[in-house]
């Protein structure tokens, strides 16, 4: 009889592979990076604790996302009074929308290409925000610009990247089918 704390190799593999999708899913329901990272950690803990209940023939993503959703709800219940949060109804609606992991992979590839093509005046702020994880205040200090200006630039960066990814996706989809 193996110890209760034993987690199988296959389970570890699945857990690793789903991290990006899980983080993405949690951020959609809880659009704050720090909170989403905390909930991701909590979700991983619960997934590991629930390993004995896991049905290997079942859909791992669906199971993991279900647990993640409950963790998000629990987090919202704890912090609803002190933070601006989506209502439970909206969180449920967002959670119900389809999540295609293969689409996420293709988007990642497209994003890598688009990120390299980002106009130079956007690159510094993109790097500070997304790679260095600097807060807006820290970015303002480093680039010596007011918060409204940095905020507007980040908005334009997101718009530019969204558009670019949308344009590149069809070609990448064809490539992946070949």
């Amino acid at each position, binding site marked *: *009889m*193996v*110890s209760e*704390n*034993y*987690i199988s*190799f*296959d389970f*570890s*593999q699945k*857990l*690793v*592979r789903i*991290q*990006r999708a899980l*983080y*993405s899913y949690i*951020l*959609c329901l809880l*659009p*704050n*990076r720090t909170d*989403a990272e905390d909930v991701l*950690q909590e979700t*991983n*803990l619960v997934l*590991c*604790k629930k390993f004995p209940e896991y049905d290997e023939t079942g859909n791992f993503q669906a199971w993991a996302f279900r647990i993640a959703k409950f963790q998000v709800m629990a987090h919202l219940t704890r912090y609803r009074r002190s933070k*601006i949060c*989506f*209502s439970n*109804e*909206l969180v449920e*609606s*967002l959670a119900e*929308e389809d999540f295609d992991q293969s689409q*996420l*992979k293709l*988007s*990642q590839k497209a*994003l*890598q290409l688009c*990120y390299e093509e980002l106009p130079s005046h956007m690159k510094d702020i*993109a790097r500070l925000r*997304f790679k260095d*994880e600097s*807060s*807006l205040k820290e970015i303002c200090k480093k680039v010596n610009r007011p*918060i409204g200006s940095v*905020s507007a630039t*980040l*908005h334009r960066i*997101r*718009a530019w*990247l*969204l558009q670019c*990814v949308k344009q590149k996706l069809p070609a990448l989809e064809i490539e992946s089918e070949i």
Partner: protein
Amino acid sequence: MHSTEDQKQILKLASQLLDETIDRENFIRLEELLSFSSENRNYYLEVIRLEALLCWEQEADVEEITFEKPKIIPFPFYTAALSVAAVFVALMAGWWAFSNFETGSTTIPIELAHHISPELDELQSGNQIHSEKLASAGLERLRLPNPEFKPISERDLIKELRKGVELLERKEFSHEFGTLDIVGPVRRLSRIDQLSRPTERGVLPAVGNDMIALSELQIDVDSQSAELMEMIQVLDLRDIATNIATGEVQLNAEAMVNQSYGACQEGAEFAVSFHAFRGRELSQKDEIGSWESSLKCDIDPQTWESLISSVQLPLGTEFVVVSINVRKSGSDAFVANTSSYYSDEFRLSLQEGEKMLVRTF
């Protein structure tokens, strides 16, 4: 168009939300837009997923790594005392067999007799051992039938222990844990052969054709840690009791350690540990000391790192268990077993002051 306008608004407000600059009025507006239609919600999800991808670490795309399931059967974690006791029983059974051979007992299996070196007769308990004699005594290994190495639960272990004691009392020999041999005045049970593997998961032995492949780590979800204590050797030092009584006997260990590719962000912590016991029971109350030296390994499977450890054996030491421990903590603990862990060039030596009692073994 209504939806294009909605999308423009959603992007602007979601951007403020992600940058934590949104005010309550705009947040309520965002909620309204998202509650309005599935189309709006899907667009919002596109925006957020892009953000998630931007924030996600891109250096190592874990999904691209192909994991090869390790071939070792995992050896589940159980208390050090019990595991040591189990090995001790096997050891005692084997040593009894050797001592009976010296007295000409007929209960020893024939295959044992063939393997015993004639020079064993010259080794007498309590004598000073000189290095030349050790060199000539050589190393005779007794390879006993070695059933497939398989995990054993705590309950089964106690059963094995009792079986071992019965076999001892019936003067029979049986073990499943390792290879028995005698090196100079030291009798030992070694698991190196049982743990040996050739190249595996992209890791080449540091030297020669094989290396020690350690078992899977035991993961503790609550403490976010993963740990393994892999017993490598158990030494019976009773024949050098008088040397140990001087308080100057030192046991030295060296090993090389490495790990394969996996999903961990950082390398594992490896350690060589010694546990000294007095008395054949090897229960916790018989433990008179334990020591450990550790190092943090890198995650490059091309490089082996060297671990060296020494311990001054305390007075009264009769048995020593030498183990290699592996540890991971934090989030890496959950994916600890996506890597495999190895050791090579595992060597022990015993010295009394400046004099070598047992050179590398």
